[in-house]
């Protein structure tokens, strides 16, 4: 019966099954690959975060405190490129997704384990190109690469950066492919679609976007590179091209991409909320279908990034109404998570604190999206700090907090160790406070009219900028704390049992850390997900 604890040191698990660099670099075990990703994206997070710190330090003075404008322009570009493509997009899917998808469905591995390893190598190669671009002078086009600035005017490392992003895109595509096939074909006996954990629904919906959207950004960046090399006139109007076409193609991927960044976090939410209120999710079917609805509608709204480009007002109307529509499934999820708490048995462990922070901050970030879906207000707010605040509330207040919550929740399963709870809760609080202090003033700045991507700014905006920078330093410290204690816990943390949280789910019915093949025998599932009312029972 899982629950008997053999001391981790003497039990064979996926971590100690084999040793040596080759056993890690040539592994096909989804759990090891998840850890390879974890290391890589953590590195990229801190590189991107370093650029953010530099930006906020620079902006404490209206004339710029730190760097020349050309350098500042490179800082915000590289911060965006690295955070979007090399941290947020892969974060939860490549780490928690890779680790948990087979385990949650009772499989031994993903459908294509070698393809999974290839995905990681492709990510590394793409990251290498981009980091090369960073070192070789940087890139200053903004992460959005708008033409004709990026195709004709910029004198920075555009092609290596675009190439790096292009290559890494294939990593996402293959991960999405692997997840879709695995979820379709390798569920344990008895595990019907509507018994799946909602994390799996979220991964499935995310994978649909990976598969349909990423190839389009690949082609777009390829065409951009071609234009830059050969001066053909695809996007440069001076030679007959259309710069707005670039925006359409870019946003056709990049809008669904933001849902790639949030859907997995929503999946994590469903797992955390149910476990830490010890209750079945409220409205399972609605939450499951809302993930699919978000994935599908996300492909129809890209034009809301282009309301002020001079596009027809009728196009604006259509994109506006669809953008409102895509907000509804997210609202449904928030209400269902909140309702799950009702009459639950709620504990305040660190993962739950992250989850609750997510719900509030995501709500606020999502609602500020309404300001931007509204045509009349978007005209005033587009291109200002309001946009910056909006997406950071969702990406950082939402996605990153969900990521941290998930990392903490599954940490004992992944490592067999527990982290110090006091420090974890403290860090969650520091992050929450630092985050709000950083980004709330930016809503005000945007409404006042301060444009984004400004290396210098009029003096009347200084107080709000200083507040934001103060928050950023707190936030930065907040992120360093988990880095330290999580690493510490690998060696010195107390040994964790198979299910320290008393959670429901097939992954919790294996030892911590799990053996390489996950399950000695493939389980047969007879119950719904989150069946917390079934006291002490397992899913089989």
């Amino acid at each position: 019966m899982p629950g008997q604890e053999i001391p981790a040191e003497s039990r064979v698990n996926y971590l100690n099954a084999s040793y040596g660099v080759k056993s890690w670099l040539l592994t096909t075990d989804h759990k090891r690959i998840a850890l390879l990703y974890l290391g890589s994206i953590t590195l990229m997070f801190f590189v991107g975060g370093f650029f953010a710190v530099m930006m906020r330090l620079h902006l404490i003075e209206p004339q710029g405190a730190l760097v020349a404008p050309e350098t500042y322009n490179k800082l915000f570009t590289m911060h965006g490129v690295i955070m979007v493509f090399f941290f947020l997009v892969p974060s939860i899917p490549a780490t928690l997704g890779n680790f948990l998808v087979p385990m949650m469905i009772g499989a031994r591995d993903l459908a294509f384990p070698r393809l999974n390893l290839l995905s990681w190598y492709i990510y590394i190669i793409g990251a290498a190109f981009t980091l090369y671009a960073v070192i070789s002078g940087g890139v200053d086009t903004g992460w959005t690469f708008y033409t004709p600035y990026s195709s004709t005017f910029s004198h920075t490392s555009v092609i290596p950066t675009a190439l790096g992003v292009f290559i890494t895109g294939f990593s996402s595509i293959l991960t999405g492919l692997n997840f879709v096939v695995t979820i379709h074909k390798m569920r344990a006996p008895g595990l019907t679609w509507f018994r799946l954990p909602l994390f799996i629904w979220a991964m499935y919906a995310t994978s649909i976007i990976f598969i349909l959207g990423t190839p389009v950004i690949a082609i777009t960046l390829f065409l951009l590179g071609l234009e830059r090399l050969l001066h053909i006139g695809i996007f440069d109007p001076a030679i007959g091209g259309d710069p707005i076409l670039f925006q359409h193609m870019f946003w056709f991927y990049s809008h669904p991409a933001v849902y790639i960044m949030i859907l997995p976090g929503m999946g994590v939410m469903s797992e955390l909320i149910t476990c830490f209120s010890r209750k079945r999710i409220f409205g399972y079917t609605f939450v499951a279908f809302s993930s699919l609805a978000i994935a599908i509608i996300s492909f129809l709204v890209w034009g809301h990034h282009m309301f002020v480009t001079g596009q027809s007002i009728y196009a604006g109307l259509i994109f506006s109404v669809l953008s409102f529509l895509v907000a509804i499934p997210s609202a449904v999820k928030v209400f269902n998570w909140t309702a799950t708490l009702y009459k639950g048995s709620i504990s305040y462990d660190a993962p739950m604190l992250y989850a609750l922070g997510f719900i509030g901050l995501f709500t606020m970030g999502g609602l500020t999206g309404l300001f931007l879906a509204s045509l009349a207000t978007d005209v005033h707010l587009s291109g200002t700090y309001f946009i910056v605040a909006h997406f950071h509330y969702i990406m950082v207040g939402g996605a990153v907090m969900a990521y941290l919550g998930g990392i903490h929740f599954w940490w004992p399963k992944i490592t067999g160790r527990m982290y110090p709870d006091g420090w974890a809760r403290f860090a969650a609080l520091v992050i929450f406070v630092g985050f709000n202090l950083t980004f709330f003033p930016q809503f005000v700045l945007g409404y006042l009219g301060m444009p984004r991507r400004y290396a210098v700014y009029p003096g009347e905006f200084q107080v709000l900028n200083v507040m934001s920078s103060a928050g950023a330093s707190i936030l930065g410290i907040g992120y360093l704390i988990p880095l330290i204690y999580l690493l510490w816990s690998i060696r010195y943390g107390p040994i964790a049992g198979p299910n320290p949280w008393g959670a429901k789910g097939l992954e919790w019915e294996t030892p911590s850390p799990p053996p390489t093949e996950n399950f000695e025998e493939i389980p047969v599932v007879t119950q719904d997900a989150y069946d917390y009312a079934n006291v002490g029972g397992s899913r089989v």
Partner: protein
Amino acid sequence: MTGLMQTGFTDLAAAVATIPIHPTSASSIADSVDHLYYFLTAITLFFTFAIFATIFFFMVKFRRRSPDEQPADTTTHLALELTWTIVPTLITVVIFVWASSLYFENSRPPEAATEIFVVGKQWMWHIQHPEGPREINELHVPVNAPVKITMTSDDVIHDFYIPAFRVKKDAVPGRYTSLWFQATKIGTYHIFCAQYCGADHAEMIGWVYVMSPTDYAAWLSGGARNETMAQTGERLFTQLGCVTCHVADNTGRGPSLVGLYGKQEKLRNGDTKLVDEALIRQAIVTPNSIILPNYPPIMPTFQGQINEEQVLQLIAYVKSLGTEERKTNGK
């Protein structure tokens, strides 16, 4: 020590008191945009606080009191699900209708709007009044009169943004975009470039000067005796040789341009196009994309020979050929 702390707090309080919360409202639409903005803020704050408060309340009321506490199993509740799906949908419909109708109003300039032309180029705004005066990074306008800005870019995409008027539009190379406003308060307001355009994007800023009608008229006619845009255009028309083909009495190799602006022109391929600024620009820059039934496609392109401001001057000249008044110095 306390004295120092007191000073510190006083300074902080003073600083916080200077934090602007609300931008100046100086145009006819600013207040209505703000009303929508406040409504959205109210909704955001309401739902955010409602969710936070509910969560907080539940967290406290339903906190785990013993390690093996087992709560009851609540399943879904269809009526609740439908309610919190339909109510937000209705709210978004209200917002959408409100925002869209406001947007429609704000997109259509009144007939009598004064036209002013803007060309963005790295990293400054070139502004031209049809009466002749040119400005860089400054825009003088009369109060309580509608103004239509037609703009383009000479290089990359810029964005012309006047926060106090709540208007913004990209200046896109290769095409014309426009916005309109009616300033309601005399004063000075920021102009910002709001689309990242390279090294000095943050320096591509300026001022709008809203003046009383008399002051504005004085400003317009003050300074050196300017020629109007149309007059400059006429000079270019001769200099560049346009006049050799486009003869006014239709005896040249090209069609006469008299009375052309605003007409619906039939092309060789059967399409009918309105002759507006965009079409005239297209004819100058890529002439053989517009072929007329009775004329061979022999017009050379002037792309690269003239900049966007000069194109606008030529267009002003062509427009002037369509009206009875020609060669005027004032409005």
